[in-house]
């Protein structure tokens, strides 16, 4: 139905643009990771030094593992908050469903920075939370670990990503035909049993998508640590950022980026396979 001219006109511009502005840049990043810096100047001298540095210096491994722990915590917490919320909305909310759904979506449209800043003002030693605790005579001194710690990063990122995790899970749950839930109860399974035998398995694709999203984006986040992480909450992306900033070592930064990229891609690939196994049409 569509002529060759049509198809060409339609495919060529995005193809060209994406090649020029996505493929090429990512390739450049890849190339940079094999180069080096000598005397503050970038040298196109192909080597594996950067990767060697990464694998031998324990600092990088330590930060990477801390980052992965933080990302895993964010993923877990977002799931623990987002899944029950999605379940409640999908199965128990009756007439208010549409309104409640919109209420969950609203924070997504509100700036990341705004939400991160909110936590910064709440968690500090002079912040709202400490103020409230002292006002209510629960504590007598400011608690310092609220802010500038991995805890604060996890808290902030969980807050950011819970609605993100909610969305695909909610979509998955809405897709479950209600007669299946009735059939399960009809056959003798209690609501609790029905959840684990029917609802959870059928919501897996959404759950996997949401979890992956939260994990991957937390992994590469550098803003949350800068806002609320302090020195103990530094993540791997901060190291990359400084390498591209104050410490002028683009190749090393590129190498770390490539590692993050590969890690992300393999995770995505892995979850995609899992999702396929868990989707039943």
């Amino acid at each position, binding site marked *: 139905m569509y002529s060759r001219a049509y198809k060409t*006109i339609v495919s060529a511009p995005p193809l060209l643009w994406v090649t020029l*502005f996505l493929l090429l840049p990512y390739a450049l990043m890849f190339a940079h990771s094999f180069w080096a810096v000598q005397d503050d100047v970038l040298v196109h001298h192909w080597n594996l030094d950067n990767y060697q540095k990464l694998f031998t210096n324990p600092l990088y491994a330590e930060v990477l593992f801390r980052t992965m722990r933080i990302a895993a915590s964010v993923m877990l917490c977002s799931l623990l908050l987002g899944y029950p919320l999605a379940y409640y909305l999908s199965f128990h909310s009756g007439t208010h469903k549409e309104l409640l759904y919109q209420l969950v979506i609203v924070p997504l449209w509100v700036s990341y920075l705004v939400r991160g800043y909110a936590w910064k003002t709440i968690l500090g030693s002079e912040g709202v939370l400490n103020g409230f605790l002292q006002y209510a005579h629960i504590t007598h001194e400011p608690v310092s670990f609220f802010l500038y710690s991995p805890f604060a990063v996890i808290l902030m990122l969980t807050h950011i990503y819970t609605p993100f995790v909610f969305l695909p899970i909610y979509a998955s749950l809405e897709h479950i035909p209600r007669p299946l839930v009735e059939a399960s109860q009809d056959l003798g399974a209690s609501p609790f049993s029905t959840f684990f035998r029917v609802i959870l398995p059928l919501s897996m694709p959404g759950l996997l998508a949401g979890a992956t999203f939260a994990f991957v984006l937390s992994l590469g986040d550098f803003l949350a640590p800068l806002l609320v992480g302090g020195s103990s909450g530094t993540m791997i992306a901060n190291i990359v950022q400084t390498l591209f900033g104050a410490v002028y070592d683009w190749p090393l930064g590129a190498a770390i980026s490539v590692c993050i990229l590969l890690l992300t891609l393999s995770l995505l690939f892995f979850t995609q396979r899992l999702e396929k196994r868990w989707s039943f049409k």
Partner: protein
Amino acid sequence: MSRRTPTRRSPLLAIYAALVFAFIYLPLAVLILYSFNRDGVGGFPPQHLTLDWYRQLFADGPIWDSVLNSLIVASGAVALSLTLGLLAALALDRASFPGKALFRRLVLLPLILPGIITGLSLLMFVVLSGLQLSLLTVFLGHGTALISVATTELFAGLQKTDRAQEEASLDLGATPWQTFWRITLPNLKLSLIAAGLLIFTLSMDEIAVTFFLIGRDNTLPLEIWGRLRRGITPEINAVSTLIFAVSVALIIIWYRIRMRSIGAEAKQLLERP
């Protein structure tokens, strides 16, 4: 007849859901409240409520310059992303060419990759091309990264359209070009608006990619970011509150548009003989 599974109302779950809602909204509520607090950003309870911070905000030149910059970049990004995204969606829907699978994944990559990677890659590209860092580079960054949003939304919209309508148009003698303008595009109206609003919002809020592509002129998020480094005042609460208000307004507008179009569809179905 309503067919609802009789859910023994689970009070525990309802309480839990309410707590999650509270978690999501409390920080925002606190933020808004303290934008009126005379004595600063922390402490409890807030006393001496005032509009002074808002007055300071409205007199703050650099902030409004950055707002203007953000608006320019966002509008450009919407135009660029929608155009390329529309073409990409059409291509994915209708054409087959070597490397199509790779193309699809490539287009969607910026959506799922952490922004720092896309930002840095583009930075390297910019340096290579000799371009100066400026609003132009920011615009290129946003436009490119957000193509994925446009493509996803428009592709879904294309899937929902009735192919037979286009066939009917061609059958009646319209050229493919005319068919595109008179049939395909109007059918995508809703998707285009949705994608446009979303891209606009994401661009206004974008930090990660912008961080590395910014020149001398700041966008709003980066202007705020710079202020944060210098120290926090309720003026930042005030601008945050305004951003929140604008976001909510945008959602309401979006919601109204969607409801009106769903209502129109439903009316059509009901009026069918």
